[in-house]
């Protein structure tokens, strides 16, 4: 019975997720030229990944973005979730504000990315403000087509992926626990540090898994908002794909895939996500 109910999910994942990854793995050992790919068992594609000096640059750029975005989204997501759960007094307000936060998540990421252009450009709104307030004599150039723009867009798009699981965790914290701590004389800071933070860690972990992997997997936001100046690991793979260099692209994919799986594995060792969602 259970198996029949789970079979459609298993089938779709098998055909469109597991099998394709097997194809990627197999092709990563293939030979290729300008015209086609040829079955083979070569380790050259992997040797290229590990010996290329660019690999290290790409990975350090990818991790740089991931770490910065993770830090910002944890901080912002935690404060937003904490405010909604512990400071908003009525359920109606809480739900209303939560919906307000969530609405942008349901709109196009592509458009949300583009919407930063008129804001950050040389003649954009932020520069108008900066010039009007005489904070700078010339327009700031680092705002658009830069790492700054890329990170702003990531934070804009991904913060709710962090905040939502944290809200979910916090909503399960027994309010009596908080009252008891307060009655015993704990300050708000102590309550946050000793109760709220430890009991929200599952939400932080789930959110981190989403934010880190989404940042590491991106190739179009970084392309558009860095103006083509920055590239992460997946950007490089996308370039190889557009040049039809499938085997080396496959080998790079397998390497990053292992990195992502290890990363997520470590995060999930900290929490039991399934129990977290159901509990």
């Amino acid at each position, binding site marked *: *019975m*259970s198996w*029949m*109910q*789970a079979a*459609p*999910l*298993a089938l*779709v*994942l098998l055909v*469109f*997720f597991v*099998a394709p*990854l097997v*194809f*990627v793995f197999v*092709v990563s050992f293939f030979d290729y030229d300008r015209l086609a790919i040829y079955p083979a068992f070569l380790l050259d594609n992997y040797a290229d990944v590990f010996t290329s000096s660019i690999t290290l640059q790409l990975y350090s750029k990818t991790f740089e973005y991931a770490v910065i975005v993770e830090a910002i989204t944890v901080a*912002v997501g935690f*404060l937003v979730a*904490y405010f*909604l759960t*512990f400071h908003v*007094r009525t359920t109606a307000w809480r739900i209303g*504000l939560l*919906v*307000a*936060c969530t*609405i942008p998540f*349901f*709109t*196009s990421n*592509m*458009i949300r990315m*583009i*919407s930063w252009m*008129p*804001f950050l450009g040389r*003649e*954009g*709104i932020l520069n*108008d403000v900066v010039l009007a307030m005489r904070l700078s004599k010339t327009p700031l150039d680092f705002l658009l087509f830069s790492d700054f723009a890329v990170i702003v867009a990531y934070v*804009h798009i991904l*913060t709710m992926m962090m905040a939502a699981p944290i809200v*979910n965790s916090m909503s399960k914290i027994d309010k009596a626990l*908080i009252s008891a701590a307060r009655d015993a004389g704990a300050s708000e800071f102590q309550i946050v540090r000793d109760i709220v933070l430890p009991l929200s860690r599952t939400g932080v972990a789930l959110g981190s898994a989403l934010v880190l*992997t989404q940042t*590491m997997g991106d*190739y*179009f936001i970084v392309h558009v908002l860095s103006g083509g100046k920055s590239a992460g690991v997946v950007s490089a*793979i996308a370039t190889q794909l557009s040049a039809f260099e499938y085997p080396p*692209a496959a080998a790079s*994919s397998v390497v*990053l*895939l292992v990195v*992502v*799986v290890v990363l*997520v594995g470590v995060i*999930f060792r900290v929490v039991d996500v399934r129990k977290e*969602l*159901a509990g």
Partner: protein
Amino acid sequence: MMTEPGQPRPKSFYFLAAFFAAFLAFMYGPMLVIFILSFQGENGGMSFPMEGTSLLWFKQLLSDTGRVGDIPSALLRSLEMAVLASALTVVICVSAGLAFRRRFPGAGLLFYTAVASLVMPSLFVGFGIALGFKQLGWRTSLFTSGLGAQLTWTLPFGLMITFATIGRFDRRYEEAATDLGASAWQRFKDIILPIIMPGVVGVALFGFTLSYDEFPRSQLTVGAVNTLPLEIWAMTTAAISPVLFALGTVTTVVSFLVLTAAIAIIGLMVRRRSGGRATPA
């Protein structure tokens, strides 16, 4: 920290409320700017000031001048796809959600495969599917490889929402129904489904919008035609004009309509449930 109504609010409340307001401004500000700029005058540029107002950019979206792709067809295609993906996501996820309430062989493996599909860099999934189709001599197309690629994204999300709703479902209702002689189908139709219905609408909403906006998994798998996000991508990499903002306004309006409908339906259900009869304790 939360205090009882009537008590004065702590200072931290005002700090956090200001922070929260700034966060909302950050979330909505750029969207609002796009919306305003999409009505930019005919001689206006990509940023303020507005040189008058016009509907020129919307007209260009609809026109067949070749300056932009065939937007109306792409929009229609994306909507069809989103409806299909949403329906499949609901059926498959609710079914799987029911299965996961019991232990069954491979349950853990299946769950972690779904999680893996969620965290996998999207480009790899599209690449793998395109590669597989190529090796097998099949053609990629919108409703085969394209749909499959999108499901690898909508299903794990849908499954998480389903867990969050079915996981909180009180099994005793079901046991009571069984004791009263209900069949498995009756149990599902008359007990489980009505109770989890708001969650089901949520899953449908996720399925729809995630498919409607999906880009990285679709890029290599939809075949010869474009979905709306792919058209937007093509426009982004080509010359940028306020047409892009007009398109942003159109697609955001579509998202808002769907979202409003879903929220209204869920709200109605919850209200009817709490008002119509006494809540079972």
